């Protein structure tokens, strides 16, 4: 017994010493940003040459080795010799803004346990914060800056099965009031005039068209429906299926989106023409899990969570890398 107690004491001491030592070193070095902490995001010269001159992008830096830089916002012109410039002090997991510079940044708090939505105005100066209930996923601001929409991943937990499962929470934000207005599961959804109610409904990928009109995705079972909805009435219609993370074109007649391949979590970017019903797959052949953004009337930009790419919106051509080590692109017009 005493030999066992001794053995346990030795193991406990070894664990305690190594654990405490490791945490101490980690705590002392965690905040000390290394001296070469310069952004590694760069504009890809050939990619920039392939898109229309004069356009610019807002992106967030992707730099997992450097927590201080990861998520910082950068503005860049898309020219061969352009250098991204840091903009404001925000670090975001996802960001979006309108042409007037009213934006929504979804951020992880410093310790990574809570998440918040940060509403900012011109100059990317934050003015209101509200908490969001899970991992930031998508953010979108309406053209007039009156509303925004965001999606977060919730994780659930049950004792009995010990299983964690993910579902989404998507809400419309009142940008003036500085807080969420309602959650999309409060929408009255109809399809062909009939009520369309699903207990397992998940919503994600809000994008505003004009005024208080917006699109979003409703997922239920293995199916994904395109919703068209209004903030004022809180009513939504199912107007299409197999459409996730919609993004209306500047003229409002087309929708760029990601389309699931089979039942897997693999997606191909598509553009749907709402007037003709014509649907084209874009030239990006890799699986992309992003809400696409229109750089201009002919070009879609998106990221693979490492780099930002551009691809023609008509299915022709090929994808070009625009900015390395960046994500969440927003077109600056």
């Amino acid at each position, binding site marked *: 017994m005493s030999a*066992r107690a001794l*053995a*346990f004491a030795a*193991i*406990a001491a070894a*664990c*305690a010493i*190594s*654990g*405490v030592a*490791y*945490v101490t070193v*980690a*705590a002392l070095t*965690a*905040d000390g940003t290394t001296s070469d902490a310069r952004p590694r995001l760069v504009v890809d010269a050939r990619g920039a040459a392939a898109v229309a001159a004069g356009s610019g992008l807002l992106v967030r830096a*992707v730099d*997992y080795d450097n*927590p201080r830089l*990861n998520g910082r916002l950068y503005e860049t012109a898309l020219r061969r010799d352009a250098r991204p410039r840091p903009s404001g002090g925000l670090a975001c*997991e996802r960001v979006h803004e309108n042409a007037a510079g009213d934006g929504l940044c979804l951020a*992880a708090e*410093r*310790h*990574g*346990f809570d998440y918040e939505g940060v509403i900012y105005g011109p100059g990317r100066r934050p003015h209101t914060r509200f*908490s*969001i*209930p*899970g*991992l930031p996923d998508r953010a979108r601001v309406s053209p007039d800056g009156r509303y925004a929409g965001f999606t977060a*991943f*919730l*994780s*659930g*937990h*049950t*004792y*009995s*099965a*010990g*299983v*964690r*499962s*993910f579902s989404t*929470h998507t809400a419309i934000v009142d940008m003036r009031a500085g807080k969420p207005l309602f*959650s999309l599961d409060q929408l009255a959804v109809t399809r062909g005039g009939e009520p369309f*109610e*699903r*207990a*397992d409904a998940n919503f994600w990928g809000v994008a505003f068209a004009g005024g208080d009109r917006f699109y979003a995705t409703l997922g239920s079972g293995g199916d994904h429906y395109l919703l068209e909805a209004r903030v004022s009435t809180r009513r939504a219609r199912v107007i299409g299926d197999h459409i996730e993370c919609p993004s209306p074109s500047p003229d409002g007649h087309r929708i760029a989106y990601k389309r699931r391949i089979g039942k897997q*979590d693999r997606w191909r970017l598509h553009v749907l023409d709402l007037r003709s019903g014509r649907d084209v797959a874009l030239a990006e052949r890799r699986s992309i*899990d992003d809400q696409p953004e229109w750089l201009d009337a002919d070009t879609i930009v998106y990221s693979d*969570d*490492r780099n930002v790419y551009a691809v023609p919106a008509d299915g022709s051509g090929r994808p070009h890398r625009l900015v390395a080590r960046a994500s969440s692109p927003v077109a600056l017009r």
Partner: protein
Amino acid sequence: MYQAESSGAVLRGGRQRAAGAPRRGARVSRNVVVLGTVSLLTDVSSEMVAAILPIYLVFALGASPLQFGIVDGIYQGVSALVRLASGFVADRWRRHKEVAAVGYGLSAACKAALVAIGGSVAAIGGIVLVDRTGKGIRTAPRDALIALSSAPAALATAFGVHRAMDTAGAMLGPLAAFGLLLLAPARFDAIFVVSLCFAVLGLAVLLLFADGRPRRPDAQPGAGRDGAARPTIREAIALLAEPRFRTLVVAAGVLAIATISDGFVYLGLQRTVGFSLTAFPLLFVGSAAVYMALAIPVGRLADRVGRRLVFVAGYALLLPVYTVLLLPSAGIPGLVLALCALGAYYAATDGVLQAIASALLPDSLRASGLALLVTATSLAKLASSVVFGLVWTLGGLEVAATTFVAALSAALLVATAVLRRSPEAVA
């Protein structure tokens, strides 16, 4: 490392209790406290990783959280098979401690793997899978050891002590992770290292202090040696033909199939009470705290007034929970009532069911029997959540909740009737 000290204190406390004068009510053997300590340390270890894994995957590695969810989904099926197999293997070779140690060891090895290769998303998928397999392996033999170490009159108390310690670990884990991230922001590697330390400590307590061939406090000399022949698979399956055990499996299954899964209950509460989604994690903490506080007193009560009564009463506690889902303006009092009732329901049913079953099962097939029972009830719960989702879809939340109030009432009547006819085991 305050944790090592506090677990030492628990061990000492357990020893004193076992050695000293019997306290009011039933005594709990040292082995149960040792196993509770193992679970506490292991749960601190696994829950601190579980708490940060989604954040780590998504923000530090840039993975899609949906992919992580899929790994979990696939695992559900594997888990049931692993549990049945490990229960039987432990019984057949009478190696409950060794099989449990393999399960705990596997999870500890996974923490080491996280430290070594945790930087790859693909590796983490595999590590999570192996970690949960370890959990599947250890549950049945550990519960069998708890039963084998406890006097029949104190079984529910013993399981209550174990579950209280287990839940304490599950609540301390995320707190520990939070504290570490405060000390060293974004240093997930520090969390993995500390998690490994706790896992190693848990394994060490099991290997060094747990008794693998416990003699029940009341056992006659040589009593544990009956039925020296190794049990066969046929005998394990034949457990279901034994009338009293079969009755219990049926009663527990009928109750489980009339139960709304926690996820739906929380979602329903959110809809009816209308609190902010930010408070969602607090629901889990709230009901777990009640569960932890009540596990021991309710176990004790079960030993005194009858385990079946407490077990059925525990399910009856779900009726007020489901009723809150039907009230349009239950408000915060309704929410608090529902969380307390939910925690008490766990305290009155989880360990108590294992205690009832342990009293019915022969020593030689205890782990197999417990594994069968848990597999049957979790399959029933899986079926019920599919049904609940379907009814919610077709008829709305009110119809679904009403249906389950009716179904649970009927199940309570059925369970009471069948359990009353089958007498409490005399071990």
